[in-house]
């Protein structure tokens, strides 16, 4: 059965021994060549000397070439040589010439930048093929590879199944790779087969992008210059649909629609091979299954241009010496059950050849050249030239041995689990050489108790060093003994050293053995534990030793719980890793305990932002991981945010950007957990205004000038005040204090009807100026229900009305501090004199302030105090007798001294103002008592410097100014 295309690339190289004595030659075409190696090799001509070499070998050729027009490329009998331009206009070159049967000469061709070709010919006299030189295959191998003293490394990748349903699977790519792996591990691969720690097999789901990178970049990094590296890849390859020169191998987890981000670029393959120090690098790649990710019915040969591109790219790579492809660029690869019970035809014959069929010269050695020739001829014949494997045009050593002929020897089928262990071991072994060994700081155990000396590597995975690599010894076996696996057993109380030695290094661990305890108490005491992912768990014991002495916090010997559920951090510390259930057994001195640990998903809880946010500002939001009972475990990472109304607020990179005035619900998602919070986007200011629509409250942005009614149109409200948490707003409707959610919903009257003397009330009363206490637990306001206007407070639920002042004067314009339980208000001491009173929020400890100077001609009255957070200052409206109007001034309430004016007075105008919660800004409106009203607002900083003016609108009369949402990250006016 024919299957999808499969092409195989194979690149090989061989360095031959150098000879001496250069010889110069002058070609008629102007090409001058001086050959330095082999020595005594002269250009053809009368009396010139050729060289005698064995067929099916290669000649390493180096020298200097010159051409009047310059040299851009140099070919040694068709094979590209490496060139290095010299300052004198010549180029130094190095390359190989393959010696074929009956070959009489080799050509050295120079290409000029203009495309001109100049050729020189050199005589070759092949000798007869060598006879078997050894009695046994091992001797033959040793003889053939006498120059080879390194190790052999291999990465074998086969992918038939892909996670992405959009990638069509293959039938036998994984079987091909597994067969190649088994062969390399067998004796047939020579030298007893590849050491298991030197070969990695990645099949299907193991061949992820990450694992491929680790294998190619990290694992192969261990190869030295003397080593040889094999890479075999069978699976899909695909070009970028838009740029065919961008070629990708498809890992198991590749996404066909995001090839650029999930495919394995061939450029990375080149880079990996360049990083490999080994001189001998062989790449066998079957990556010609691009039809698998193209649209249905497009498995045309045109798509298989990947072969061509791949071959071209790898041919120009400086990291590969030989490569072998399964088919030509215009051919399909075939696979069927008829070949080896289910293989690609290419791999089938490649393995057949390696197992001895390719040993054409009968020397018991299968060289790379023989293997490729055999495979090519057999595949070509078997497929009747429908599939012709391609050998790269790079120079390589034809005779480089790749297999040993051992009649009767079988290739074992190595179990996958064993292979995976070998893969892991190879990774650890790789790290064991280059990573530091990290022993435990010390071990504490009890007599009769056991523990294990686990030595970890200082690599990314903190792998544990296999015990077989080290030898353990105890400095005092009467205290503690240790076996080959590193398991120690406490014998008697005392101190001892455990030494671990191997790979030419050693580490030492101190072991303290406690006497056998009389009583053991485990912590936690409960048998069942519930943890949240990411939550730590510490297991320890308290030991009662001789003499009624308790030793607490002793870590017992612990079993390894399921690492997918619980991560061990060492020292009895664990962390919930994933949702699941596992068990932990503890043993100390033979006393055991078992815990059943259930790891559950964390809940996410948004760390409460202010309920009211200013429009046009930004705020970083954070969320916490919490237990189901709400206890906080820490900050949550990778939280996904969502805004219910992106016209009002958007989330970008955990930062909330407010765009419009209104109500927004923000959702935070962490796994399956979700939390939400409702915030209100407000303007900087809340204005009470009177206009054609009657009285209402506007939320106004000083930044944009946007003004939005905050309450329903039917509600004639004034004197707004925002709660400290921004969730509610207090205001006045029909001379009564009301309260509502900040979005204007849930409007309700706050204060109850106030009874008069003896339960009888003849007078009508009014309530005004609601403000919130600093903790938001009270609403403070003024009311003349007691007769005069006095200061009262009430709980936000409408209960517990308290009268804060009991004076015989009118008291108005109460304000509260944002940072302390204090209030300030004005008290009328006479018809034209008003002082400021500062008191605690319960009305006690009242102190009266005036800015009047004794015996001064001009008398002032003080009105409308407001606190400035973080300072001892009050801002107040200062009014002189007569019609001079009100000015804004500062007063230091620590000494009662009044400062200069922030805003000068205007005749017959009073001032309405608000100080921002952060104490940096003042917004004010100067309201005419007589005549035409205006609706101008001015923003100044706390030093009185004007910042901005705003006009609310014609026909609108401002009756109250209050601050809305406080600026957050920074003031936009600063920017």
């Amino acid at each position, binding site marked *: 059965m024919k299957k999808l295309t499969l092409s195989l690339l194979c690149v090989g190289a061989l360095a031959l021994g150098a000879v001496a004595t250069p010889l110069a030659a002058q070609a008629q075409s102007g090409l001058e060549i001086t050959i330095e190696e082999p020595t005594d090799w002269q250009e053809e001509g009368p009396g010139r000397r050729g060289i005698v070499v064995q067929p099916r070998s290669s000649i390493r050729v180096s020298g200097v070439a010159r051409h009047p027009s310059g040299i851009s490329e140099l070919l040694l009998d068709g094979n590209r040589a490496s060139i290095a331009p010299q300052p004198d206009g010549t180029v130094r070159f190095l390359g190989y010439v393959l010696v074929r049967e009956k070959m009489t000469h080799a050509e050295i061709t120079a290409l000029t930048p203009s495309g001109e070709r100049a050729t020189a010919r050199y005589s070759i006299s092949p000798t007869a093929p060598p006879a078997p030189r050894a009695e046994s295959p091992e001797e033959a191998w040793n003889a053939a590879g006498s120059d080879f003293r390194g190790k052999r490394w291999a990465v074998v990748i086969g992918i038939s199944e892909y996670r992405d349903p959009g990638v069509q699977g293959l039938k036998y790519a994984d079987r091909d790779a597994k067969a190649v792996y088994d062969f390399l591990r067998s004796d047939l691969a020579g030298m007893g087969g590849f050491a298991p720690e030197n070969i990695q097999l990645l099949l299907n789901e193991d061949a992820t992008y990450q694992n491929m990178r680790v294998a190619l970049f990290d694992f192969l990094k261990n190869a030295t210059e003397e080593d040889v590296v094999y890479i075999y890849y069978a699976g899909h390859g695909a070009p970028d649909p838009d740029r065919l020169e961008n070629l990708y191998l498809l890992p198991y987890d590749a996404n066909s629609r995001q090839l650029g981000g999930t495919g394995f670029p061939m450029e990375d393959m080149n880079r990996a091979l360049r990083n490999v120090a080994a001189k001998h690098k062989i790449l066998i790649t079957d990556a010609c299954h691009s039809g698998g990710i193209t649209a249905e019915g497009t498995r045309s040969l045109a798509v298989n241009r990947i072969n061509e591109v791949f071959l071209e790219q790898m041919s120009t790579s400086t990291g590969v010496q030989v490569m072998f492809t399964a088919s030509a660029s215009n051919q399909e690869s075939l696979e069927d059950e008829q070949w080896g019970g289910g293989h690609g035809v290419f791999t089938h014959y490649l393995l057949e050849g390696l197992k001895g069929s390719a040993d054409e010269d009968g020397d018991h050695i299968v060289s790379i050249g023989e293997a490729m020739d055999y495979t090519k001829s057999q595949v070509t014949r078997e497929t009747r030239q429908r599939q012709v494997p391609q050998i790269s045009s790079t120079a390589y050593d034809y005779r480089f041995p790749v297999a040993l002929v051992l009649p009767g020897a079988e290739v074992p089928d190595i179990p996958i689990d064993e292979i995976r262990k070998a893969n892991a071991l190879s990774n650890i072994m790789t790290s064991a050489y280059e990573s530091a060994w990290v022993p435990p700081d010390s071990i504490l155990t009890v007599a009769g108790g056991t523990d294990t000396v686990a030595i970890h590597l200082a690599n990314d995975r903190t792998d544990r060093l296999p015990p077989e690599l080290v030898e353990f010894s105890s400095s005092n076996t009467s205290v503690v003994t240790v076996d080959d696996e590193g398991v120690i057993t406490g014998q008697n109380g005392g101190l001892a050293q455990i030494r671990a030695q191997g790979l030419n290094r050693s580490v030492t661990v101190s072991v303290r053995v406690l006497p056998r305890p009389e009583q053991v108490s485990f912590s936690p005491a409960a048998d069942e534990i519930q943890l949240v992912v990411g939550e730590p768990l510490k297991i320890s014991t308290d030991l009662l030793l001789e003499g009624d002495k308790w030793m607490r916090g002793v870590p017992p010997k612990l079993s390894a719980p399921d690492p997918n559920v619980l991560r061990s951090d060492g020292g009895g510390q664990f962390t919930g890793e994933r949702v699941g259930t596992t068990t932990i057994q503890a043993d100390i001195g033979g006393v055991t305990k078992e815990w059943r640990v259930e790891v559950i998903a964390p809940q996410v809880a948004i760390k409460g932002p202010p309920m009211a946010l200013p429009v046009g500002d930004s705020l970083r939001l954070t969320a916490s991981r919490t237990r189901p009972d709400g206890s906080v475990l820490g900050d949550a990472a990778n939280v996904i945010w969502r805004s219910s109304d992106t016209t009002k607020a958007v989330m970008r990179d955990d930062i909330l950007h407010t765009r419009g005035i209104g109500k927004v619900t923000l959702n935070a998602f962490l796994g399956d957990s979700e939390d939400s919070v409702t915030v209100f986007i407000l303007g900087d200011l809340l204005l009470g205004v009177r206009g054609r629509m009657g009285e209402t409250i506007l939320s106004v942005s000083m930044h944009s000038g946007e003004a939005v009614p905050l309450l329903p149109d039917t509600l004639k409200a004034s004197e707004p005040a925002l709660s400290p948490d921004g969730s509610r707003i207090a205001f006045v409707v029909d*001379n009564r204090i009301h309260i509502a959610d900040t979005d204007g919903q849930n409007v309700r009257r706050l204060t109850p009807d106030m009874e008069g003397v003896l339960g009888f009330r003849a007078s009508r009363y*009014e309530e005004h100026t609601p403000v919130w206490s600093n903790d938001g637990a009270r609403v403070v306001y003024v009311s003349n229900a007691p007769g005069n206007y006095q200061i009262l407070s009430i709980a936000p639920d409408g209960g517990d009305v308290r009268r804060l002042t009991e004076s015989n*004067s009118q008291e108005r314009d109460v304000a509260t501090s944002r940072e302390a339980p204090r209030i300030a208000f004005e008290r009328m001491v006479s018809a034209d004199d008003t002082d400021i009173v500062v008191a605690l929020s319960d009305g006690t400890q009242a102190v009266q302030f005036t800015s009047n100077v004794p015996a001064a001609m001009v008398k002032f009255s003080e009105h409308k105090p407001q606190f400035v957070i973080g300072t001892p200052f009050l801002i107040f409206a200062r009014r002189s007798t007569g*019609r001079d109007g009100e000015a804004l001034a500062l007063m230091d309430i620590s000494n009662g001294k009044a400062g200069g004016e922030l805003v000068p007075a205007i005749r017959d105008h009073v001032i309405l103002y608000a100080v921002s919660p952060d104490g940096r800004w003042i917004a004010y409106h100067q309201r005419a008592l*007589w005549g035409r009203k205006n609706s101008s607002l001015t923003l100044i900083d706390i030093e009185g410097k004007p910042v901005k003016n705003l006009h609310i609108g014609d026909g609108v009369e401002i009756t109250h100014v209050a601050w809305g949402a406080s600026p957050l990250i920074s003031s936009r006016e600063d920017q």
Partner: protein
Amino acid sequence: MHRAVVIVAVVAAGTLTVPAEAQFSSDIPGVPRASVPFRGNHQNRTEWTFAGYKIPGAADVGDTTALGVRVTFGRSYRIRNVFELGFDISIIDGLLERPPEDTLPGAPPGPGSYIRGSGFYGLRIGGKWRPFSALDLDGYGWEGAIGAGVQPSLRPLIGAESYDDSTRFGGQFSGEAEPGLRGSDPFGRIHMATFLSGMASYRSQRILADVALVAEAVRESDEADGPSPLVKFDGVSPRGGVMYRLTPSLALGASYWGNGAPPWRDQISVGVPGAAKGEHYGFIMTLGSRPESGTDFMVSTPTGDWGQSVRLYIRGRSTR
């Protein structure tokens, strides 16, 4: 139950004060106000009243001319926020009257100029309860009050009278009063008067209005106790006044007290025919921008004929 107790208490207090009641604080001359001071705790009142007469005589008799001046002082105290107690007293009251120079042919020469004066007399005390109010943060709104007062029957502290070349002095400590030359005796005991009043006030930034219903009981001046400067009035008089503030410093308005006692209710009047007729109203101009304070200028005509008489009433009031 509570309301019943309160009502009974109010009635009892009113009964006890009858025939008490006297002067109440006012913003509009002649009209007691219901309001109590909003910002301060007391109101000061100082009144200057100037009156001029030129009253024609009979056919061949010349005009009678007269000039009067009166100075009073008063103060009202706010107690808590619904009560007010006050007093007023006339400090000086003087009158110069010149009879017609021309007499009928053959008749004996007429009398000469007549001068009289009283000091510290006419004390009035009263109290007010303002059970109803509806005031905003600036003190603007409605108020309603009831009040009662009394003017004790006391002689002036001092008095003097001169007619031609005859002069005599007297007063509180000068024994029994002697018959005066005119209907009002500077030494005479002022008959006790009682007052009851219901008052209502309205205040806004531009409008100041008061109405009152005053029940007075003033006995005749020629009763057994001797002459009294008070004009007899025994009845109920509706009163009202309004001021409109044209500018922050200027208000205009008018006051009507009808048949009730005028602001200068105890001023010695000129005992000439028609003199007591028709002085029921006045026109007011108030200067000043301070709240609950100002200088009031009111003009009226004592005889109801602007051509015969004009009275200028000046009052300074302030709230402290």
